[in-house]
């Protein structure tokens, strides 16, 4: 375990080096957050009752999403891993006494956590200070807060194990761009990164809520905002657990197969 902790640590240190990137990222997230909230506010002004989430729930959803963007978004891309596979730098990772799947998992999770921790505070502070009705509210009660934290951890697990499947697919492909773009677009849409899932049409929504993407940001953000509570929340967490286990198994299986026929590129 210690070696994975060490990997986590160096990833963390590494992510802390990039201050300018953090500032730029936060600025974008403020701008994006306000834009999204104003757009929703305009819709809500037309008819308050026509929407599946209350305005305050939507506001909390968006602010939390922006604050913890790095944890949830599929379009965050681990260049180090992609480069290592495509250019053959993977050779060095394979001469380490480490299980490559665990190593990558650790690396991706650490990178996301480090970025999120570095950026969340300013966004959260501002989100709690802006005037009503654009202010973020606290979760309804302590249980809900606990469920939110649990669900966030699972969500991170699902996001990481899903992205590992994509990195493993790079063993079979030479350029990461294609998969990367397609997966990012689809999964972020289906995860509720663009529009929260309750806003989807009823028939589509029933299906989408069963997919692994629904086990990503959809769950913790809706639990935080109070849109999902009590038994429904536990059911959602069970779905997350299911997908996490399934993706981990699939990822390990795919990794084993890929490593058996791996060819290290470039001499």
């Amino acid at each position, binding site marked *: 375990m210690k*070696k994975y902790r060490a990997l986590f640590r160096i990833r963390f240190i590494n992510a802390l080096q*990039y201050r300018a990137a953090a500032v730029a990222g936060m600025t974008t997230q403020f701008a994006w957050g306000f834009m999204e909230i104003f757009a929703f506010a305009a819709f809500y002004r037309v008819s308050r009752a026509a929407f599946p989430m209350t305005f305050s729930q939507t506001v909390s959803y968006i602010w939390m999403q922006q604050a913890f963007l790095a944890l949830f978004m599929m379009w965050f891309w681990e260049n180090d891993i992609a480069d290592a596979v495509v250019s053959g730098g993977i*050779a060095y990772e394979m*001469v380490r006494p480490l299980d490559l799947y665990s190593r990558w998992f650790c690396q991706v999770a650490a990178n996301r956590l480090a970025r999120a921790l570095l950026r969340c505070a300013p966004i959260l502070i501002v989100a709690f200070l802006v005037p009503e009705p654009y202010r973020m509210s606290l979760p309804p009660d302590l249980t809900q807060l606990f469920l939110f934290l649990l669900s966030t951890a699972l969500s991170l697990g699902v996001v990481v194990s899903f992205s590992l499947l994509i990195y493993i697919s790079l063993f079979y492909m030479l350029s990461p761009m294609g998969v990367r773009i397609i997966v990012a677009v689809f999964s972020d849409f289906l995860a509720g990164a663009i529009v929260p899932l309750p806003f989807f049409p009823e028939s589509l929504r029933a299906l989408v809520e069963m997919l692994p993407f629904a086990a990503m940001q959809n769950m913790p953000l809706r639990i935080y905002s109070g849109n999902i509570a009590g038994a429904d929340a536990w059911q959602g967490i069970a779905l997350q657990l299911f997908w996490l286990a399934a993706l981990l198994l699939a990822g390990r299986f795919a990794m084993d197969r890929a490593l058996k026929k791996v060819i290290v590129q470039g001499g």
Partner: protein
Amino acid sequence: MITLQNICKTFRVAKRQAGFGHAVKALFSREYELVHALQDVSFRIYDGEMVGYIGPNGAGKSTTIKIMCGILTPDSGVCDVDGRTPWRERVAHVREIGVVFGQRSQLWWDVPIIDSFELIRDIYKVENRLFQNTLDELAALLDLGEILKTPARSLSHGQRMRCEIAASLLHQPKTLFLDEPTIGLDATAKIAFRQFIKKLNAEHGTTVILTTHDMQDIEALTGRILLIGNGRILLDGSLADLKKHASESKTLIVEYVGAMPALCDGMTLSEAKEGRIVVTVDPSALSVSDAIIRLAAQTELLDVSVSGASSEEMVAALYKEYRI
């Protein structure tokens, strides 16, 4: 001990003709060519040996190294390193080996070297005191000192290579694989590197397997040479064995004033320009001293230098002999 028996490895490489038409055609049906990277490779390396593994580009050197490191699975054959099959027991195997790929980096680009080293310490579970001792020793021998606090991106290539080598030795491996380690190093750095490897082998008994194109590395370091070409082991022996294959001819570089001297039997002209000729002398037909006397009798010599075949030329001659 490392034993390889009848190792074969074939790669499938996509091929197509140049041009747009062929590129479009390749979208639908691809032609593959089988490249036999290794064919029936067998050899044995004993503990504490230093072995130079040479061959032209694409001969299969790196493929062999990757198989011995457990990165690549061969199509057939047996490989045994200290009782383990590298690709089956990869994790246990790689704990005992150190690898330097001269063309890649294992250091984290943006963090100080020492952070990378500490990560390696934790990955290999090296005990803290042992790590400190090893690090001190390596830092003294490789003159790391202040470099340790600098991020890899700010180091020169020579400095970074010293760190790469140290990084591969922090867990005190029994076997060290060096894949083109001196690529791009200046003369001083190369000499320092060779001395370091020699010392490591003498003091710790580390087995060293080295691939290189720099024959001076081989001359300075290894007692034994494995020559590989087209995926086969062509020669396994000492530097002296290698020399037997090379021709005995000597090269004379002559600078003169006046008319160009005429050559006699046993001399061949390999280069000529105003006031300077390069002559190859076959000692079985004409002795070197006779050759010089002949030349001196015809014109005024300013400078004469005599040299035998260099290792570089020997290897080039060998490649030619085996048509690789």
